């Protein structure tokens, strides 16, 4: 009942013309960058974040969230038509989607992807709406030790699933923690790691690192290769995009499977939409009557991963909005955005900012409808975006990145730091260091240090406070188990296999 009242209030916010407009801008931009291979939602949100400073926070959140879930719709287009995943989460969609396109059913594959994204995306929002308020109430009992343990658990999950080498993921996270502690200490007046320059007294702005590592790192990585893939012909006309009844019937279980698995994986930090799409594809194949046909172009092989990918959005917003703990690079940037606007996601967010929380939830219902309407008839148009040449696109990304950083502070020193972090992002890609743990370490570093030091103040320096409280002890034990899991050969083989099949 409470949720329904909240939702009604949310629709009153989301349906205001201004918010409808920003929702549209968000899902449209999201679809466009989802279509463009090599430019992900994390990079786009980071680049556009500084431009939202002057907007009302609710409109800004609605737009940035629109980019987040819109990109997932767009990502499937390149996967199906080009066999190039626009986003890492679309890797699995390539398997059957591209095969369908080669058989001349590309239109139907795109249609199924859009319908499945709509169904599962909506289920994900319903899940968010129902799960977030009780979880927030539960989290109100948390104190510093629980928060420290929760953040440790979140980081452990991200590290476990970030890449083949856990040592590299851990190191990336530690570098993030180090960058987070630059500047004046929270509790004393000690200035830490400032290299003797006053520019670093306030620390390094999150936006600079995010844009550098995600946007510039991605473009520099793409610069290594010059060619572009060949595009399969884009089907024209709405009729060719509609799947047949038989195809839809084959997908019924996949819609449910994708929705549920995507949401559950989304709630868990670290796993993310790539893992969600992979698992739901695996489940779909396991329960299928004709598993041998998977990979040859079966519609349910498109519906399940695309659904999971979109349902994951709603799930991933649960820990972000109720606990203030992001589970991926993109949600970490959303968290930074909230903090920049002076909002602190956490258990009190729904109570303190109901119009923002419920407005966002309602806007996601609206956004999903917009995406369905946009995507079905406009897929041929969006596919044209693929014809934009790299040499036109990349300078524009450099320009927007630079403006994004310059508008934060008006400081040329920050622009120079952007170049430094761009190089770091590229080198991390080259040397196989995952970037998500670095960004999460950076975003959570301050809060984690604060929680740890406050806990120890509560206990007069006794570390056992972290393990003597049941909730915090459970979470810390889980975190340790996760980190030591790969030492067991069988578990590690499973982990690497999962990551490899993810591409």
């Amino acid at each position, binding site marked *: 009942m409470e949720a329904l009242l909240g939702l009604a209030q949310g629709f009153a916010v989301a349906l205001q013309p201004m918010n409808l407009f920003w929702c549209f801008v968000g899902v449209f931009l999201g679809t466009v960058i989802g279509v463009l291979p090599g430019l992900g939602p994390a990079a786009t949100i980071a680049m556009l974040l500084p431009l939202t400073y002057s907007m009302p926070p609710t409109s800004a959140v609605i737009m940035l969230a629109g980019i987040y879930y819109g990109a997932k719709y767009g990502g499937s287009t390149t996967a199906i038509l080009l066999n190039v995943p626009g986003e890492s989460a679309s890797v699995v969609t390539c398997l059957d989607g591209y095969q369908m396109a080669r058989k001349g059913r590309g239109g139907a594959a795109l249609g199924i992807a859009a319908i499945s994204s709509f169904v599962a995306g909506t289920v994900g929002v319903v899940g968010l709406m129902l799960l977030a308020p009780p979880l927030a109430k539960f989290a109100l009992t948390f104190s510093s030790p629980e928060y420290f343990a929760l953040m440790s658990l979140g980081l452990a999950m991200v590290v476990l699933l970030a890449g083949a080498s856990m040592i590299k993921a851990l190191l990336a996270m*530690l*570098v993030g923690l180090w960058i987070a502690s630059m500047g004046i200490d929270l509790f*004393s007046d000690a200035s830490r790691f400032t290299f003797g320059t006053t520019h670093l007294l306030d620390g390094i702005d999150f936006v600079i690192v995010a844009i550098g590592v995600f946007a*510039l790192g991605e473009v520099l990585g793409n610069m290594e290769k010059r060619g572009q893939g060949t595009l399969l012909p884009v089907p024209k006309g709405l009729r060719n995009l509609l799947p047949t009844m038989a195809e839809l019937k084959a997908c019924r279980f996949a819609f449910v499977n994708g929705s549920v698995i995507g949401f559950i994986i989304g709630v868990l930090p670290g796993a993310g939409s790539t893992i969600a799409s992979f698992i739901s594809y695996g489940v779909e194949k396991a329960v299928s009557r004709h598993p041998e046909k998977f990979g040859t172009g079966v519609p349910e092989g498109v519906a399940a991963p695309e659904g999971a990918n979109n349902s994951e959005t709603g799930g991933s917003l649960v820990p972000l909005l109720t606990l203030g703990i992001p589970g991926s690079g993109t949600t970490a940037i959303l968290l930074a955005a909230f903090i920049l606007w002076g909002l602190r996601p956490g258990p009190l967010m729904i109570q303190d900012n109901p119009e923002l929380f419920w407005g966002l939830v309602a806007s996601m219902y609206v956004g999903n409808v917009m995406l369905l309407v946009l995507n079905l008839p406009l897929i041929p148009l969006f596919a044209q975006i693929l014809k934009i040449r790299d*040499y036109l696109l990349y300078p524009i990304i*450099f320009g927007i990145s630079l*403006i994004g950083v310059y508008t934060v502070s008006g400081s*040329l020193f920050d622009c120079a730091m952007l170049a430094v972090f761009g190089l770091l992002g*590229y080198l991390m890609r080259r040397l196989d260091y995952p970037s998500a743990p670095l960004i999460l370490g950076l975003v959570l570093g301050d809060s984690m240090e604060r929680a740890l030091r406050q806990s120890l103040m509560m206990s007069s320096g006794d570390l056992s406070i972290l393990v003597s409280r049941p909730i915090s002890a459970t979470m810390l034990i889980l975190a340790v188990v996760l980190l030591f899991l790969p030492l067991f050969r069988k578990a590690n083989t499973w982990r690497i296999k999962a990551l490899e099949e993810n591409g």
Partner: protein
Amino acid sequence: MTQSTYNKGDVISGAVLAALGVYIITEARNWSFTSSEGPGPAFFPIWYGVAMVVLSLLLVAGSVLRPSVNKGTAPTNWQGIGRALTVWAAFAASVALLNVIGFLMSFALLTLFIMVVMYGRPLKQSVIAAVGNAVGFYLVFVLALGLSLPVGPLGF
């Protein structure tokens, strides 16, 4: 062709990170670790500094002791790396030029460089794109959004 026996990237990056860890610990030793009020500013950095040294040494040791795990991986694409680093250097140069010639000029030059040098596009087409980019950015960011960008001696 046999691959080198260990992954040079891992060894070098591991060594750099170990050095960073040592730097963090050395710096943190200048601040108090604990005080009467609880942990001091050095408390957290010492922990992650030590973790960084241990993990990076494990990374180096792992790649030296367990050589040639890379089963038939493609040889390093030095040409590609050169391309990426050249573009990075051009970007860094355009940042350095911001307060000399202003954002729009420096952005147009970067576009020109990427198109002509990196992609071998015809000069005329590249000049049109570079000017178009600069004008487009001026219209969107300066006129429409009212942002102030670094200006050069010509006032734009």
